Each structure stands twice: as structure tokens, then as C-alpha cells.
């Protein structure tokens, strides 16, 4: 071979064609690389997502756009039945005043409704009206420490989530007790669930029983995140 290149161009072309077709055929071998690809790109993507989200409130929908049939129910561990009388929402961690709120205490706080597009990571979406108290109001009631950076969310079905504090304090992030004007049905998270138009569905924990304010993220970042889903999951 007189060419200075170690491979001539014809060989390179063949290699390229073979390589790209094996990408299709041998995709399975590449599946193990997925997490590395995600880890390489997510820090930048997350920064852009947080930057976009920093612009505050997002537009809401009209109530005639609500589509109850479109909202599918996903549950990772069945439907826990919580007794509304004995229900308590625990707020602890880096707060000046740990709280244990019953449903009456939540109902006494200012109530808000957000008609939003609920987007599932699977690809479907539904316009839903969630009503309840602002998560920010509950956290401020508990007197957040200036060291607070993250919110860890425990659910009755042992589902676990963690949020960055800015998303938790977003004015449209609610601890919802009502859906489409009626009390929250059990499969949708009764008596209290998270809702936010700025996050994918799996961030919006149902059957929320505990909020823990933390300075750092632990080993566990979330039930689905630990399986490989994105942590920020902004919309």
C-alpha cells in the first residue's frame, strides 16, 4: 500500500458501513454503554434544564382541556390504603421547626389549583387539575435551614424520591389533595401526593408521608433514578 494512511478510504468506507450496520444489529452490545452515555451528557443537560426552569411559573391549561380518561395509573408497589384520620405528614431534617401535619392542618393552609399537563416518562400525557397546598408553604412553615439543598420524599408504598430545593419551592409544585375538583382517589395517591408541571410523572410521588430536608443527596436518589432514569427530569 503506497497510501500514507494505515487504511485506504475504500477500507474505511467498508469499516464505516459495517460499523453503522452493526450498531443496528448488535445494539445489544451497546446497551451496556447507555448509562455511561447518560452520565456523560446529563450534567450539561441538567444545567440547561435548571436554567430554563429558573424563569418561574409556566402557563396552565383551561379547565375544559382536562382529559380524565388520558391519565393512566402507574404504581410500583400496589395501592396503599391510608386512613385519613390517622394520616400525618412528617417534615423533618434541616428545618427549624419539624412538623407533623394532619389533613386538617393542610386544609387550613392557602389552597391552590394547577391545571397542567402531566407527562409520563413512557410518552403519554394528560391534562389534569391538581389542587392542594404549595409545597413551598409547608417547607417555609417548617422554617428551612439556609443549609437546605435537597428534599427527600418518602411514600407509604416505600417509593422514594429526591428533588432539588429550587424545584420543590417552585410556585406550581403542590402537595395535592384533590384531582379535577374531587378528593384524590386512592390509586392517584390519596390522601396527599406531589404534583408539578415542571417535572416528569415519576418525580411526583403519590401517598407522600414524609419530607426530609437535606444538605446533600445520598446514595439513593429515587426508586426509578436508581434504576437509570434521569434525576432532574424537568419538563
Amino acid at each position, binding site marked *: 500500500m503506497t497510501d500514507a494512511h494505515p487504511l485506504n478510504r475504500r477500507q474505511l468506507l467498508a469499516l464505516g458501513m459495517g460499523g453503522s450496520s452493526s*450498531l443496528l444489529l448488535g445494539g445489544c452490545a451497546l446497551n451496556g454503554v447507555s448509562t455511561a452515555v447518560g452520565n456523560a451528557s446529563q450534567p450539561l443537560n441538567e444545567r440547561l434544564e435548571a436554567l430554563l426552569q429558573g424563569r418561574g411559573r409556566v402557563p396552565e391549561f383551561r379547565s375544559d382541556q382536562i382529559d380524565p380518561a388520558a391519565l393512566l395509573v402507574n404504581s410500583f408497589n400496589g395501592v396503599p390504603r391510608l386512613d385519613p384520620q390517622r394520616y400525618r405528614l412528617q417534615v423533618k431534617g434541616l428545618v427549624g421547626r419539624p412538623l407533623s401535619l394532619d389533613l386538617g392542618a393542610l386544609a387550613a393552609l392557602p389552597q391552590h389549583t394547577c391545571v397542567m*399537563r402531566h407527562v409520563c416518562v413512557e410518552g403519554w400525557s394528560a391534562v389534569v387539575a391538581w389542587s392542594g397546598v404549595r409545597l413551598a408553604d409547608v417547607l417555609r412553615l417548617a422554617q428551612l435551614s439556609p443549609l437546605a439543598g435537597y428534599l427527600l420524599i418518602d411514600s407509604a408504598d416505600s417509593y422514594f424520591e429526591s428533588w432539588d430545593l429550587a424545584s420543590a419551592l417552585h410556585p406550581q409544585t403542590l402537595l395535592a389533595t384533590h384531582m379535577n375538583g374531587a378528593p384524590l382517589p386512592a390509586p392517584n395517591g390519596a390522601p396527599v401526593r406531589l404534583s408539578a408541571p415542571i417535572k416528569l410523572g415519576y418525580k411526583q410521588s403519590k401517598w407522600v408521608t414524609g419530607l426530609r430536608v437535606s444538605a446533600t443527596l445520598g446514595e439513593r436518589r429515587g426508586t426509578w433514578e436508581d434504576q437509570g432514569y434521569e434525576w432532574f427530569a424537568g419538563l
Partner: protein
Amino acid sequence: MPEAPAQATTRLRHNPLWTRAFHSINLLVLIVMAASGLQIYNANPVFGGRGGATVPELFTLGGWLAGGRDWHFGFMGLYALNLGLWLALLIQRRRRRLGELGDLSALKASASGPRRRLSAHRLTYTLMLIVLAFSLISGLAMYKPAQFWWLTSLFAVAEPFGVSSWQALRLSHLATIPAMVLLVVAHVVLSWRIGGLRLLRAMAL
């Protein structure tokens, strides 16, 4: 090779480096985007929802939904950067190479075969750039529907026809795959007719 020595010594005239880089990066990135996109499709098929038919595993990349999303959102930046740079360079340096309305009339009326082929080809690759840009826009509208609500709401044009804006968005984002496959085939066939394998090599390597 039983070719004339004069031809054998003719050096391949390569396209500019940026043309070749765009072509080869784009080929790789588009395969990754399409295969990982089909992986995401399978989590909730656009046609039929949860009960709908899924795409065979052979054409998917990522193994499951989270893996598909890793690839799709990992490569979207590269895709956008590559397309953006190419469009900027084309508009700046090669304006007359893009298709225009004159090409449509040439296609209909020109008696010259090569002129018609040139017009068809210019229209083909200009259309490819439009489809690629549309894919980026519809993808952005689906990736960040709350922040880019104004993009997402453009798809409400389908609502009078009984299709929700979300379904219209998913459908049109998906439709860019078959559209690109057809256009790539046309682009390769037309290039082949002009310069055979030599031209294809000059374009990509």
C-alpha cells in the same frame, strides 16, 4: 484493476472537510437518534398506546426506556450542533446550492436530463435539512413541553381534526424517521447516478 493507468492515478477530489465531517457525523448521530427514539417509542407506542405493537428489538438502542433516553438525550446536543453548524455554513457560503422555487419549474419543464436531476437533488437535500430541523423542533417541544409551551402549542393545529396536540407532536416527531429514510435513499441514489461510489466516498470520507 484493469483500469487505464491515467484513471488510476486520478486522485479522488474530496469535498471540503466540513462537508465530509457533517456527512459522517450525521450518519452516525441519525442512526443513534432513530434507534434510541424507537426504544422510547416502545415504552408507549404512538399507535395503540400500552397495547400497541412495539418495534422489533433489532432496530432499538438502549435495552429499555431509561437506556434509550440516555442515548437520545446524550446525542441530541451533538445532533443540534452538527445541524446548526452545517446550516450556518451552507447559508453563509453555499447559498446557491440550496433548493429554490426555480428547481420546481425546472423539474417540470426542463428538457435537459442533468438539469432535472440537479434540481431534484437540490430539492432532496434541502428538504432533508428542513426535516432535520423539524425533528429538532418537535423533539424540543416534547422534551420540554412546559418551558417551550409556545412550541408545543403550535401542534394544537391538529385539535380541530380530533387529534390532541400531544398525539400530533408524537406522530410528527416519529414521522421524521420514515421521511429521513426516504430522503437519504433518494440522496444516495441521486449522488450515485452523478458520481458513483467515488462521489459517495468524496462526500463522507
